[in-house]
């Protein structure tokens, strides 16, 4: 299904529509600007309906996992005040000029001598955004387009293969509420293998927004025209860092460890922000073993509360781990010294190396040593993948460790229980997304 200027078309019309799309987009961009306040209005209107339960039936038919949680998050995110707040946080002083079309006024900053006095700064949408959305989270394609609309861009969306019509449905509803949005959104269900179509969409765009793993990003880099900005929201890795546990009061430590365990189990370690490795600021393996023995009961308690895994999934993971070992035995590769502490539906693996890597997920966490002084050297090996560090340490050294983690390249530093919690106005992988979807135009008067 294709959504083109608010109209639905069969997939077979793609070629014909693509041929006229550039003309249509050019017409839109030369004659009209999207009124961002109307976008906010429309989104808030849908939010109200969502909250009132108008779409409950439709949503129930999708049978999504953890629906209520997700819905709550969506409602919180799409509230008018939330949207306004987000624009303010991310665009700062650029917000008003973008929305009103008035030039940027810098009130309290007298210009130093020598600068041109008759320059006016305007904030405009980047232009046309081509969104290549991943299928790993429902609603992500729409979310991406929404960011494009909030910054006044024309948006071309390539749906992920897994999309079952939800994205088009939501965008149509948005267009119904606010018809002026129609010519700012084009949705195609082109498969990623249709390189010609992907190329022609990329050629019409000023920015290509790509969500997904390394393969998706690499593919986009191959076909994107040299001049286009590529905005990558790639997959990331996160970990917990524990230091000076003996200096933490028993009661608080207990709570924090339980919170960490619940984070690990409840996110199933599938998120960018999920803890894959628990690093201890320690030198000795004995300390790692001792921690595993201590932490396993917490993890087991959490696993009993969030039974999310099927026996088949667990079986696959156990088998894979076993096959990995056999493979190394047969090939006479060195087998990293590992000790697995198995619990019901979860496990901790004490590893002798220090690499930040993906765990077996689903409540199977890695535990490694990482003395503070080696942090930079080790973590830099994963630059470009670092996202959240959950930090557990005595308050006296928290500031120092936070600074060190930030210097290593981490972009979110939280308590260990809140690694995956989202909050209003948060940056996206170390960046303000909206800031990347606008451009600054200096005009000499």
């Amino acid at each position, binding site marked *: 299904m294709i959504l083109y200027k608010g109209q639905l078309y069969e997939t077979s019309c793609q070629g014909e529509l693509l041929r006229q799309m550039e003309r249509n987009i050019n017409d839109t961009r030369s004659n009209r600007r999207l009124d961002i306040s109307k976008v906010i209005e429309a989104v808030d209107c849908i939010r109200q309906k969502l909250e009132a339960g108008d779409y409950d039936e439709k949503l129930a038919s999708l049978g999504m996992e953890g629906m209520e949680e997700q819905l709550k998050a969506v409602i919180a995110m799409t509230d008018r005040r939330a949207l306004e707040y987000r624009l303010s946080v991310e665009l700062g002083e650029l917000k008003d000029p973008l929305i009103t079309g008035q030039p940027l006024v810098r009130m309290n900053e007298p210009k130093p001598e020598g600068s041109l006095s008759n320059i006016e700064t305007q904030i405009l949408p980047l232009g046309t955004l081509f969104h290549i959305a991943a299928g790993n989270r429902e609603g992500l394609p729409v979310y991406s387009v929404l960011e494009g609309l909030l910054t006044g861009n024309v948006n071309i969306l390539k749906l992920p293969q897994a999309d079952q019509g939800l994205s088009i449905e939501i965008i149509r509803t948005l267009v119904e509420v606010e018809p002026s949005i129609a010519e700012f959104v084009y949705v195609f269900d082109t498969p990623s293998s249709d390189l010609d179509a992907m190329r022609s969409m990329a050629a019409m765009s000023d920015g290509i927004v790509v969500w997904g793993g390394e393969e998706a990003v690499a593919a986009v880099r191959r076909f994107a025209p040299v001049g286009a900005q590529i905005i990558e929201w790639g997959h990331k890795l996160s970990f917990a860092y524990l230091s000076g546990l003996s200096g933490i009061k028993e009661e608080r430590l207990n709570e924090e460890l339980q919170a960490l365990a619940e984070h690990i189990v409840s996110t199933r370690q599938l998120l960018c922000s999920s803890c894959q490795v628990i690093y201890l600021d320690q030198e000795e393996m004995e300390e790692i073993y001792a921690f595993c023995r201590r932490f396993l009961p917490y993890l087991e308690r959490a696993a009993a509360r969030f039974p999310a895994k099927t026996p088949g999934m667990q*079986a*696959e993971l156990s088998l894979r781990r076993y096959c990995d070992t056999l*493979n190394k035995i047969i090939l006479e590769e060195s087998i990293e010294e590992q000790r697995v502490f198995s619990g019901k539906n979860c496990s901790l693996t004490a590893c002798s190396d220090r690499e930040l890597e993906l765990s077996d997920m689903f409540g199977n966490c890695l535990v490694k040593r990482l003395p503070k002084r080696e942090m930079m050297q080790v973590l830099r090996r994963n630059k470009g993948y670092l996202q959240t560090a959950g930090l557990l340490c005595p308050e006296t050294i928290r500031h120092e460790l936070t600074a060190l983690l930030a210097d290593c390249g981490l972009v979110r530093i939280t308590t260990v229980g809140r690694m995956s919690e989202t909050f209003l106005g948060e940056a996206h992988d170390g960046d303000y997304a909206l800031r990347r979807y606008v451009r600054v135009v200096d005009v000499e008067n």
Partner: protein
Amino acid sequence: MKYRARLFSWKKPFDTEQTEELFLKAVRENCRFQYDHCKAYRKILDYFGFLPEDLKECEDMERLPFLPTWVFKNHTLFSMPERRMLIKATSSGTKGKFSRIGFEFGGLWNGLKMVLRIGRWRKLFSLCPVHYIVLGYKPHKGNQTAVTKTAYGATLFTPALSRTFALKMKNGSYEPDLEGVIAAIVKHSKGHFPVRFMGFPSYLYFVLQIMEEQEIFVKLPKGSKILLGGGWKQFYTEQVDKQTLYALAEKVLGVKESEVIEFFGAVEHPILYCDCPRHHFHVPVYSRVMIRDVDTLKPVENGQIGLVNLISPMTLATPILSIMTDDLGILHEGKECGCGISSPYLEILGRVGLKDIQTCAAGAAKYLSQEEKG
């Protein structure tokens, strides 16, 4: 291999209780052979600190390192020079990877004794010639899969008047010829000689459905039988609702449920599992089944779900002594069946897998898709 020979000559094919000791000895004997002749196998046992002679009690088989089928798809493990192997079979690798398993004369000889014993018990042999309808591949020199071999091999149980194949080689690939099968059924139903079906249950199901839709109902001559088999996949609990299949067979072909006989085997565990009159797969003396916990890979009690680990000392050429399938199953107490056989019976629930997992943790997509390669 005197213990193996004695085990495979045992008179009662489901007398697992009386053969415990003998089975253990045969396993130990096989294990020693593999340990001495297959370098990779020895490395694995050494790594886990296990020696063949550690098999002192039946319980010790729990600790015998098992080899997942994945190993045979990714490594060639032979305990004999290839020239000594009579058959090299591959599993029907639907995902493109095959297990390479070799069989030597001694193993096949014992296998033959097993087939004869089980076949006689289930009354598969008769001198009366029959028409065969093979719901599977017509043998072709490019097709080494064991399914083809067993399906064809089973047509040798009784003298064959004719053989009709549901899958035929056309222009280099197999194509179903269900119309040809239906025409043959109709033709044979008018004759005097019994008809024997052999092959995949799903194909039989298609054929019967088409016949029902086209209102072609026949009554096959007395003595006609339906033999269903194939790889493991064919026997997942919900693959085809078996009761529906039996009812359809009676309605469309006039073949009673008791004449429908199912069996399965896997290349990695070439033991003939044949169902009892109540359609349960009891463990025969040649094999032992251990269900292992999905977390710890330790054995669980009967009635619990887990990974299916199969043990048999039949083969020397390849160390398939104790193999782990990708399947989840349950081992039930024999007496729950009620057919009179006391050995436990195996129920296969389906293949394990991590499909459809959504994630954004770096590297996860690649990691999860490794399954496709296995």
